């Protein structure tokens, strides 16, 4: 549905987005991650036809955004960053306006508004003026606007920003559900959201894509992925460290924490170990009368760690130097 090739945007001498390419098919939810100022919003603005790219092409469905902008825009629903709204309108008036702009009229318009209102839980503020709404409700109103025409492509810039935990959950579920039939791109700073809703994630840093894969694949890049953590009671820390370090598939063994009488230790694997192998080795290495293993589990890897590592190459290099 969406095909972006070599997208580049320059603001004066500054390159905000640099040769970004990706595709999103129907049924995919693409999470867009990256530190502040990475170029997420700029990419989305180009994608939705708000700003023209300096270079590169954007294909939405069968249409090229630069050559047939109207047809391409018709397929897209867009929630801009910070959810801009016409403050002097009521929620209903605004949604009716959005529906009209999308070509609805009469009963079809009423139905479209009704559907969006239900989807975003806006009944209680329907006739309230937008400038008196709370931040979360504003966000939901703007979100409702983006789905009012049931678009094939949804571009959402931080859709859960400012929502309460319940609403965050609802919107995430909504994105996941809608993602089965649409092509969705959304940006976020909340990493759990990526795991909860995305089929694929892209990490962008200083305008360039630095990682692209399913949340599982990204987590594999984590140092922690495949590590085995064990909680042992009534044992000696030094002994544990020594025994774990001697395991064939272990790269490194560390004592994470000591909470007497409990010791929490972790073994990092050498390369990718087969499922469960390292855990069994750890179990065998620590099998000794008197020592009690309370807990033993294999880590999945953590997205936040991956994120930190690949978006901060400068600091990582510095810590590795000495």
């Amino acid at each position, binding site marked *: 549905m969406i095909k972006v090739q070599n997208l580049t945007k320059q603001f*004066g001498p500054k390159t905000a987005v640099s040769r970004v390419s990706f595709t999103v098919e129907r049924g995919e939810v693409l999470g867009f991650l990256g530190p502040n100022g990475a170029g997420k919003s700029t990419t989305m603005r180009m994608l939705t036809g708000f700003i*023209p790219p300096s270079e590169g092409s954007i294909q939405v469905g069968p249409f090229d955004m630069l050559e047939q902008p109207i047809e391409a825009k018709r397929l897209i629903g867009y929630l*801009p960053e*910070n959810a*801009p709204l016409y*403050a002097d309108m009521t929620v209903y008036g605004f949604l009716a306006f959005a529906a009209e*702009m999308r070509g609805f009229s009469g009963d079809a318009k009423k139905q479209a508004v009704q559907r969006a209102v239900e989807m975003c839980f806006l009944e209680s503020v329907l006739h309230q003026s937008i400038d008196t709404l709370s931040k979360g409700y504003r966000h939901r109103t703007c979100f409702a606007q983006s789905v009012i025409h049931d678009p094939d492509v949804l571009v959402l810039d931080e859709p859960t920003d400012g929502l309460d935990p319940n609403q965050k959950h609802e919107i995430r579920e909504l994105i996941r559900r809608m993602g089965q039939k649409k092509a969705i791109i959304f940006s976020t700073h909340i990493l759990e959201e990526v795991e909860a809703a995305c089929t694929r994630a892209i990490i962008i840093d200083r305008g360039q894509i630095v990682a692209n894969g399913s949340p599982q694949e990204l987590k594999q890049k984590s140092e922690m992925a495949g590590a085995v953590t064990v909680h042992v009671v009534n044992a000696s820390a030094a002994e544990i460290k020594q025994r774990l370090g001697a395991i064939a598939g272990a790269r490194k063994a560390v004592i994470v924490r000591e909470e007497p009488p409990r010791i929490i230790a972790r073994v990092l694997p050498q390369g990718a170990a087969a499922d469960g192998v390292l855990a069994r080795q750890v179990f065998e290495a620590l099998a000794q009368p008197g020592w009690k293993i309370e807990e033993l589990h294999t880590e999945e890897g953590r997205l936040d760690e991956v994120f930190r590592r690949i978006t901060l190459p400068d600091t990582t290099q510095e810590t590795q130097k000495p």
Partner: protein
Amino acid sequence: MKALLHIKTIAKRELTGYFASPVAYVFIVIFLLLTGFFTFMVSQLFGRGEASLSAFFLWHPWLYLFLVPAVGMRLWSEERRSGTIELLLTMPITAWQAIVGKFLASWLFLALALALTFPVVLTVNYLGHPDNGVILCGYVGSLLLAGGYLAVACMTSALTRNQVISFILSVVIGLLLILAGWPPVTQMFEQWASPWLVEGIASFSVMTHFDGFQRGVLDTRDLVFFLTMIGFCLFTTGVIIRGHRAG
């Protein structure tokens, strides 16, 4: 057809926006009070002993100089400040539909304010026998004049997010457009510049072209002047907006 529909939707939204706030009513009241004050108090409509509205239309260029920028200053600057321009221009419409829609809404609003001056027409008709054709012509000219100023305000509001700056810019441009053809100024210039130069500059003035309408002369050249002015300013608005988007 779709284009007209989009323009209508945008204009309707803009107009409801005006009337949702007290600003619209305040504007209309101020407009009516000022026209009344200048027509009856300063120009002494009753004391002139003639049945015409020349004393009424005489003041319009000066009133519009401040009142029209007040209406137009928020057109695009507010859209940019609040970020709604991003919503508007990612909808399946072209930028010129949005520009024309917003312009027409404000123009319609000004037309409404102008229409509410009808008691003046009734008064002169009650007191004497004015030439109503001349009066109608004056109204047409006044409406075009307002449109011209509004297009300038539309253009300056696209230049900046700041409404105050937008207001000041359009007042300054409007003032230049008046002074270029205002007799006291042209007479002063005639003393040291060649007459054709003064006349050439004056041909860009709204005063020169509004004059005919006031006297009841509907000249195509005046009509074309105002329509060209509107077209040019709206076109420039489009260029400015495209410039912002390109970054």
